């Protein structure tokens, strides 16, 4: 079954986007946007849609299969982008305060996050803080302590991680320190401890050393 990659006629990017989606779903905070990967699939979907609207005749027997595949790809793209937006909802304040996390968003996502945060702040001012008596005009601004409240406290979490390349000694951050990780191993570990593996591309910019399962 691991024959996907061996077949020159098969586009690996589809499987890789599926994995990117699973990674995003499992990771407790936002991962870098898979610009290249998602871009390729978006482009291919566009080309295929064009073909359906143009050169392909209405009675072509392949049409229902093309359409079903398009539905599948659109679903995958939607699921991936949607997961990121929902995550941005949850962590918007944290992300915007951290240049590192913010750099993982697309321009459209940053705009979304900023728009969303503004709305939340306006709402909290209108329905809570702005209604409180205070001897200072500044009370209409969210105080740092209010912000602290809106930052989810559990940034880290436990994840299941599969090692896809021999990783050598890896520090798992627990009392025992490091462990030798081989291809195929599965660890349950803090996300922060395996995040570097997840984000490290192979030597030639190939697939990452680990994936979340």
């Amino acid at each position, binding site marked *: 079954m691991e024959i996907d990659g061996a077949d020159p006629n098969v586009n690996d990017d589809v499987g890789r986007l599926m994995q990117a989606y699973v990674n995003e779903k499992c990771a407790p905070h936002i991962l870098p946007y898979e610009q290249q990967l998602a871009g390729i699939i978006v482009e291919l979907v566009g080309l295929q849609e064009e073909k359906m609207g143009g050169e392909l005749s209405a009675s072509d027997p392949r049409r*229902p299969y093309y359409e079903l595949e398009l539905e599948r790809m659109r*679903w995958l793209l*939607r699921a991936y982008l949607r997961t990121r937006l929902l995550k941005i909802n949850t962590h918007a304040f944290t992300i915007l305060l951290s240049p590192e996390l913010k750099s993982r968003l697309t321009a459209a996502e940053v*705009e979304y996050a900023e728009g969303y945060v503004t709305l939340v702040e306006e*709402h909290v001012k209108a*329905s*809570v803080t702005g209604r409180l*008596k205070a001897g200072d005009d500044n009370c209409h601004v969210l105080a740092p302590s209010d912000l602290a409240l809106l930052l989810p406290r559990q940034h880290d979490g436990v994840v299941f991680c599969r090692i896809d390349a021999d990783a050598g000694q890896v520090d798992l951050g627990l009392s025992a320190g490091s462990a030798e990780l081989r291809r195929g191993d599965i660890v349950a570990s803090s996300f922060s401890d395996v995040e570097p593996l997840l984000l490290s591309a192979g030597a030639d910019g190939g697939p990452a050393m680990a994936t979340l399962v």
Partner: protein
Amino acid sequence: MSGVPSTCSALLRELRTSPWVPQYNEADVQKAIDEIDELRTHAHSVAHLDSFSDDDPAWTSTLTAEIQIYTHARACLIAYATCRLSKIMELRWAVGGELPAANRALLSPAELKFADAYDGVLAEYMGAVGGGLDLTNVASPPKELYVGVRVERSAGAVVLASGQVLQLNAHERHLLRRADAEPLILQGLVEHCQQ
């Protein structure tokens, strides 16, 4: 039971046990705001008393306690407001499009304003990513191009994503394109029947 104000936590507890959000409770929110104001005013007046001394623990303990109590109450109120917003967005994401009237009826005017403004932010994002992908109301992955549905109760005419108008008469069955069927099923207007 000591006399620590409890209106804010009552609001939170009500929210916590609700399947979506409880009816917005303006009276209690106002009561909570008054409680915070009162304690805060008191704390400030204590600090300005002639007898107040910041070397005297009998005074600083009073200030510490009062500040803590209203800070906590304030945090609860903010949590009440923002957690309700999260539920509004949750529903928006689940059904796509405008919130159903039954749900809107539970919200405050400010929350309705938020819901509409949030629609705008979301629409802007979805416009920017192109491809016309609607990211909300994503149901389970597609198996077939068409989905069989059954109308439970008559619900008048609905306009499908494809622009077609469909009359929803009780007990009728339809075979719809997935994109057309999904929002109707999620909104509970029709039921999905599997072959």
